[in-house]
């Protein structure tokens, strides 16, 4: 295997793995956050506006970790700097 093949294989595998593993934690955390918010909404319906706003802000914070993983795998697939480097080297040769 030459080095460009190694880069391609590693990029593809890591792109899949980063999104899949990066989705596990936020999914668990968001489920827990929503469940807690729902039970507190059932206990105190008067505070619904505050709870909803805090829930949305917190969900966006949690979700951003998953989004970071998605951005990393998108960069690895569509705009991979290492792959572009090898392509440019092969073109220059």
């Amino acid at each position: 295997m030459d080095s460009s093949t190694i880069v391609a294989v590693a990029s593809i595998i890591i792109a899949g793995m980063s999104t899949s593993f990066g989705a596990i934690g936020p999914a668990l955390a968001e489920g827990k956050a929503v469940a807690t918010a729902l039970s507190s909404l059932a206990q105190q319906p008067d505070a619904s506006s505050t709870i909803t706003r805090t829930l949305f802000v917190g969900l966006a914070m949690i979700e951003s970790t998953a989004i970071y993983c998605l951005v990393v795998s998108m960069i690895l697939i569509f705009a991979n700097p290492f792959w572009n480097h090898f392509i440019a080297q092969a073109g220059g040769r």
Partner: protein
Amino acid sequence: MHLSPDVLIYWQYGFFKINSTIAMTWMLMLVLSLGSKLISRKLSTEIKRSRWQNLLEVIILGIEKQIKEVGLAQPEKYIGFLGTLFLFVAASNLCIIIPGYEPPTGSLSTTVALALCVFVAVPVYGITELGVGNYLKSYMKPTIFMLPFNIISEISRTLALAVRLFGNMMSGTMIVGILVSITPLLFPIFMTILGLLTGMVQAYIFSILAAVYIAAGSRIRTSKSASVVKDQKTK
């Protein structure tokens, strides 16, 4: 398929080029500013008023209420900045129902620019509220050892603000693009509807987070005076 609308270039003259992001941003700015100019040309204070004026009043009052709930007591001071952020991001995310439109918030350059505006606005509002010395002192709030961590958090939250909006909007267009090539007819429509929802939520989150950061940067004196009042009460 491309990662951001920066790649779509409409017109180029040497180094100077107009890509999709710039064109769409200017289009949105024109529509927003000309629209509000046209509506606010003939305002009335009577009971009978135009429906457009009603729309603008509903939007402005809603934004003011949200800002007040975050903890900024005088929303008139901040609505110029926070309201503009919200309206621009919301409009640019909602226009994805127009065919051929690419949201400028799906490009990292737009979101970094917006996040840098927040990064500059936090110390500006904090200094006008507290003065230079008090604001700089707030960086070593618990102890002086927290100074580097406070500075790091200032930078990392700006980065997070930019990448969050970019990632959400980019993934929306990307997923629709991939689905169009796999299951062409119905499924992309549902994902676009979901994209409209996430777009609105992201616009809300972006402006609320900016409001929270500004409130945190300009709150020290009020919390101190509140604690003083509490001490006097206990005495």
